[in-house]
């Protein structure tokens, strides 16, 4: 079939090609950023060790985990093992215990009984400042973002580095780099409430990954986003995952689960109902 207006078609093709190029350029930039992050941080060392040992390190281990909220049992004998560098979805109906499970891995909730090992450290045995140090190795993207409305995007993201007491030039540099990675460098002086839902989500992700964590946990990160934005956000998670970070995402978005061949854990009534 001959196009009605060959010139216009050619022009369109050219535009598409340019778009592809532009995307590739952005991806390349992202990759470069990623690589810089990796080289400058523990990630490099981690990767290095892994290549030599050729043995997956167990990042998250749960043994006979129970959690009661009053009379109701939120988690019922959970046994789980997630290796370093895995990309895991946790899914199940509302009230299955997804959020509770994630909060326990993060040390925000204590188990009624059972043990949680993060990178070999038993969470039952640590508290106070040790827990704080552990959290610096776990990035958490909250369902409600938990951004501070009176601080700018830049301040919200840099907060995660402020707490480590790093020198300010380092914090500034790294915050800029992370904001560029999530594509929000131009919104750094905006306040969270001036941003769209997808942008707020990206700020939350930037704050979670700025410390180059060993584990990235996200609770319903695509809850109220349209399919395009969902794809963007998932790309971001994959990007972080490709750095060597273990990623755990709780979701009940079926579309998301169909897409990849990632490991998926099904929870129902506080039990592991299946695995794919």
């Amino acid at each position, binding site marked *: 079939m001959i196009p009605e207006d060959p010139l216009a078609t050619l022009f369109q093709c050219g535009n598409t090609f340019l778009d592809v190029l532009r995307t590739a350029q952005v991806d390349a930039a992202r990759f470069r950023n990623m690589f810089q992050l990796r080289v400058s941080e523990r990630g490099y060392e981690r990767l290095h060790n892994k290549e030599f040992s050729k043995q997956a390190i167990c990042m998250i281990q749960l043994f006979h985990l129970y959690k009661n909220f009053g009379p109701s049992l939120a988690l019922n004998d959970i046994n789980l093992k997630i290796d370093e560098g895995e990309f895991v979805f946790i899914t199940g109906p509302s009230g299955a215990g997804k959020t509770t499970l994630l909060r326990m891995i*993060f040390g*925000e909730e204590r188990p009624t009984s059972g043990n949680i090992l993060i990178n070999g450290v038993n969470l039952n045995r640590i508290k*106070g*400042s040790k827990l*704080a*140090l*552990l*959290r*610096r190795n776990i990035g*958490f993207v*909250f369902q409600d973002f*938990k951004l*501070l409305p009176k601080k700018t995007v830049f301040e919200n993201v840099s*907060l*995660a580095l*402020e*707490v*480590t*007491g790093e*020198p*300010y030039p380092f914090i500034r540099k790294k915050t800029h780099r992370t904001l560029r990675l999530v594509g929000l460098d131009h919104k750094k002086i905006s306040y969270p409430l001036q941003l769209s839902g997808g942008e707020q989500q990206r700020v939350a992700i930037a*704050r979670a990954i700025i*410390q180059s964590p060993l584990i990235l946990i996200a609770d319903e990160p695509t809850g109220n986003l349209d399919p395009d934005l969902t794809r963007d956000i998932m790309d971001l998670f994959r990007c972080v995952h490709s750095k060597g970070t273990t990623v755990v995402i709780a979701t009940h978005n079926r579309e998301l689960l169909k897409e990849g061949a990632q490991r998926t854990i099904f929870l129902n009534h506080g039990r592991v109902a299946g695995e794919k």
Partner: protein
Amino acid sequence: MRFRLWFYFIKEALVNIVKNRVVHVIGLGTMIISLLIFGSFLLLFVNFNTWIYEWGQSLTMSIYLNDGISDLEKEKIVFYIHKLPSAEVKRFISKEEALRDLRRALGSQAGLFEGLSVNPLPASFELAFKDPEGNKVNLKGIKQKLEKMGGVEEVQYSEEWLRSFEGLIDLFKLIGFIIGGLLFMGVLFIVTNTIKLAIYSRRDEIEILKLVGATDWFVKIPFLVEGLIQGVLSGILAILMLYCGYLFLSSKIICFLGIAMLNFVFIPYEYMMLIFLISVALSFLGSFIAVGRFFDI
């Protein structure tokens, strides 16, 4: 700890104070008032003590003479006084002088004496004892001896009155301690409350800070700094206000008495430091209690 972190803590504390300025101003005002009350007590205490010390340093004794005293008897009395250690005759007040002094003291009421044909007032010697405590002067003995001498009508001295005054000072001290203790408890509650409100108003931020890996102390220290700033400010302001009050009052007293009869002094340097340190220590303790309670839950 790193310098940068302290910069962060102080910045956070100041931002916090500006954000919660109403609470802080109320807290600061209450603290200043409490410290002022305590400071006023100290000021009065210091001055009473000084006056008593000064009076104690120069005890006075009045020897009233009979109207018909002979010169020989007078000489004998003067001779006796000169023999006493540390005593000196300040002056001899004749009958006329005594009347004149009384008229002056009565001022407009002096007309009462217009119709008087005889002067009822006795002549007297005014004695002063330098450092009676140190010289172990037996005032009672002197009084008895003098009263046995010819021409002496009566001897009065100020010691008995002074003793009761010293008892009053002890009572004053006790009241001061009780009021001071109560006020300090009040100050402690105020600071604890102010810092609790500050923590409460920032609970979201605290939660997020802890979630991104801030240690407890990283979150707590700005609040402790906040309490310290409040303590330092209220300490300084209370001392300044006390000084202004002192200047105002002392000028009033001098005007009222016509002459500066009493030497009205300000609290010494050590007591100023005491007020300041109490203020700082209490506010630090208060904020410590506040952060402890909040974070241990």
